[in-house]
């Protein structure tokens, strides 16, 4: 059990790589940088594989049957002094503590494997893609730091440590989007991603505090245990609030409505970053977190419905924008948002397994699409606009074929990976009771059609039709080096085969994926079933009917994929210079709205940032700033000046009073009076002593006479 015991080493390898790059990277040669950083990820991948293998052995033994493996190194947050103690909602004392603890269960195993696996391939790819870029060591340092954060997020055994990883990946996302920081658009996009993510993170933190207050613990195992204990009613308002807040966090990180706006802009980063962070791994952290909190979410049907509705709306919303975008990476970015919407739809309808399955398959084919797009951009000397591409198919054949595989996978063509996961989601949505869920299914179905259309549009515009690039660019077109094509091929194999792990029973498979995840989601499935929130009482005739329905749905979604493909084939197969968009011809206003992304960024500028004025009024943050400034200059300063004016007036009055009344009447008045009275008196004092003596004598004589005669 060596690997299992040391799972905490998995995040530390990339952390070591990042530290080396931070301290010594500038002095190292590119070859050394590649060796250290890629080497660390390979080591992490190897240990991860070993750990998952040992875990599957461990958890199938009699004594640890289906238990999560947990190893706690030490308590890193909170002390034993009692300073961080608090009372939970029912008055029992609890300590706010978080371990540096690592949890391995089927859910984290899946993430661990594809994050390290895809991460390793993308690292290898980057050595080719970034070979001629400056800041090579910086790029790899950030990538390794990202891997460290992501692995911490995945392996954390409590919400707080997960949040540390969550913030870490957010930081790395910021750093890597702004990798070309000398470009204004890149640094703006980085700031946008960071700020929008903060909004979600605020929700996450609040949700976390709700959980701490309600359950008295932040450890996943304990929270899940308490949630299963039956002490909490279904629909408990506090749990609903907590889960909704967690979902706000997930919306930020996983780019759901209305916080998805940062992800398309994040394409300013280098393409391997888009592949690793903004397609395969980081953006699925929200799905991971909700899947991790599944025990709470099943107790909050309102939250589940919210998740499902937001997911479905995001899916179709982003897909419709993707229909008309011209930047190859932006199409893929909107596609990512749309696919993430699918995942949340799955989580929301209680099909946690299907959601996780889609994360898993999506990681491969979307990483492949991005890396392929990177290879295209590489060969086109940096050109990203599909209007200036075309006819690249036979010039860069490996890129073309691998991307075709990924496109077939994402479009949901049998038997590529996306078919299985997307179909699982649509089937689970269909089989939920209630008309509203049917509506969500229609949305998902329409999204599938759009997905096929925009992906094949991308393929035809890039690899087929007439060449539309400049002669100079055409001259430079070349297939990418082995370090880039090898990961493409590896990912292509995964994009074909990853879905087979979840080959459904209805098609004669064994659905190993669901079985593997059963320890995590089985109790929730039971709860949902008892609540009558799923209709899968698969028995006898029901089963026959269900299976045939499932086949029908599969055929329908294959039909949708084929239809989308056909439409793209018809419109873009022969695309030449100045080709026309079918949507622009059919409905110019719709095309305009889609091209401008529903004017959401503009709307946010009007309402939330205030960079645009709504008539004479400015709303949002800048509006608030303006209003505050106005309030300050007019009201606060007015009050200050008013107070000053009053005091000055009072001082003037007081000074007049002092000068004329106090000094005049009170002080000088008696003096003047005394002086006036003194005039007659002082006439008596004329200074000749003998006269005074004479007067005295006369007085004396007078007295004597008076007494003598009296």
């Amino acid at each position, binding site marked *: 059990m060596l690997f299992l015991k040391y799972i905490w080493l998995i995040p530390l390898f990339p952390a070591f790589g990042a530290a080396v790059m931070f301290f010594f990277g500038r002095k190292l040669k590119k070859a050394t940088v590649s060796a250290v950083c890629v080497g660390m990820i390979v080591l992490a991948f190897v240990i991860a594989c070993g750990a998952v293998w040992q875990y599957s052995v461990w958890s199938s033994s009699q004594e640890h049957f289906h238990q999560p493996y947990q190893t706690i190194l030490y308590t890193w947050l909170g002390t034993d002094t009692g300073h961080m103690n608090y009372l939970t909602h029912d008055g029992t004392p609890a300590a706010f503590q978080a371990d540096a603890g690592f949890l391995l269960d089927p859910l984290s195993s899946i993430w661990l494997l594809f994050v390290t696996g895809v991460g390793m391939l993308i690292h290898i790819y980057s050595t080719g893609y970034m070979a001629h870029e400056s800041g090579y060591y910086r790029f790899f340092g950030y990538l390794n730091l990202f891997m460290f954060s992501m692995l911490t997020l995945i392996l954390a055994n409590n919400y707080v440590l997960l949040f540390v990883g969550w913030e870490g990946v957010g930081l790395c996302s910021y750093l890597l989007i702004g990798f070309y920081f000398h470009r204004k658009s890149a640094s703006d996009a980085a700031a946008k991603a960071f700020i929008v993510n903060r909004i979600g993170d605020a929700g996450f933190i609040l949700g976390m505090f709700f959980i701490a207050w309600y359950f008295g613990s932040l450890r996943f195992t304990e929270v899940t245990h308490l949630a299963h204990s039956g002490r909490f009613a279904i629909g408990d308002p506090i749990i609903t609030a907590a889960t909704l807040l967690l979902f706000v966090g997930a919306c930020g990180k996983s780019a759901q409505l209305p916080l998805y706006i940062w992800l398309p802009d994040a394409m300013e980063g280098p393409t391997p970053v888009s592949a690793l962070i903004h397609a395969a791994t980081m953006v699925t952290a929200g799905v991971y977190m909700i899947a991790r909190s599944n025990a709470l979410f099943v107790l909050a049907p309102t939250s589940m419905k919210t998740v499902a509705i937001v997911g479905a709306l995001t899916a179709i919303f982003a897909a419709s924008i993707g229909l008309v975008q011209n930047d190859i990476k932006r199409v893929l970015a909107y596609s990512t948002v749309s696919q993430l919407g699918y995942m949340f739809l799955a989580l929301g309808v209680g099909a946690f397994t299907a959601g996780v399955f889609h994360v898993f398959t999506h990681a491969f084919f979307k990483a492949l699409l991005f890396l392929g797009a990177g290879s295209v951009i590489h060969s086109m000397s940096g050109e990203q606009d599909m209007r200036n591409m075309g006819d690249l198919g036979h010039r860069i054949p490996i890129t073309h074929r691998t991307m075709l595989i990924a496109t077939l996978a994402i479009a949901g063509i049998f038997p590529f990976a996306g078919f299985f996961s997307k179909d699982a989601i649509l089937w689970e949505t269909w089989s939920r009771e209630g008309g509203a869920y049917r509506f969500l299914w229609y949305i998902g179905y329409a999204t599938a059609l759009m997905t096929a259309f925009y992906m094949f549009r991308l393929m035809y515009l890039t690899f087929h039709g007439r060449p539309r690039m400049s002669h100079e660019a055409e001259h430079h077109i070349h297939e990418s080096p082995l370090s880039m094509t090898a990961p493409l091929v590896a990912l292509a194999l995964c994009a074909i085969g990853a879905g087979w792990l979840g080959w459904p029973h209805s098609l004669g498979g064994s659905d190993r994926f669901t079985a593997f995840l059963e320890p995590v989601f089985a109790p929730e499935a039971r709860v949902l079933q008892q609540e009558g929130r799923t209709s899968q009482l698969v028995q006898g005739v029901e089963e026959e009917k269900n299976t045939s329905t499932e086949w029908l749905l599969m055929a329908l979604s294959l039909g949708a994929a084929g239809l989308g493909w056909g439409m793209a084939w018809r419109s873009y197969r022969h695309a030449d210079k100045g080709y026309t968009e079918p949507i622009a011809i059919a409905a110019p206003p719709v095309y305009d709205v889609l091209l401008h992304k529903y004017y959401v960024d503009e709307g946010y500028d009007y309402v939330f940032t205030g960079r645009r004025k709504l008539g004479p009024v400015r709303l949002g943050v800048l509006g608030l700033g303006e209003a505050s400034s106005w309030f300050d200059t007019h009201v606060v300063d007015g009050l200050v000046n008013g107070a000053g004016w009053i005091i000055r007036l009072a001082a003037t009055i007081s000074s007049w009073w002092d000068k004329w009344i106090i000094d005049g009447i009170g002080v000088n008045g008696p003096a003047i009076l005394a002086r006036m009275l003194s005039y007659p008196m002082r006439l008596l*004092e004329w*200074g000749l*002593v*003998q006269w005074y003596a004479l007067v005295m*004598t006369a007085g004396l004589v007078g007295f004597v006479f008076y007494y003598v005669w009296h």
Partner: protein
Amino acid sequence: MESMLHITTLHYLILGAALFLLGVIGVLTRRNVVVVLMSIELILNAVNLNLVAFSRMWGGLHGQVFAIFVITDAAAEAAVGLGILIAFFRNKETVNIDEVNLLKW
């Protein structure tokens, strides 16, 4: 003859009154401050004479004790008065009392 020779209290009083009158006239009329001071001495000694005379007439000693007090007082008064006078003379180079007229309105 005997009654003619006998000096009664009345005689002393008359002598005292005469001395007093002389002193008063001196204080009021002489311009020299030294003379004025001397005239004050005359007044004081006229009083002394009265005190001693009455003391002898009543047979007590109170009057005589008072006379000694007055002599002491006169000595002090002469010292202070002459001191002031010298200070005054140094300033004004005169001892004419009409010149001593600063203390007025």
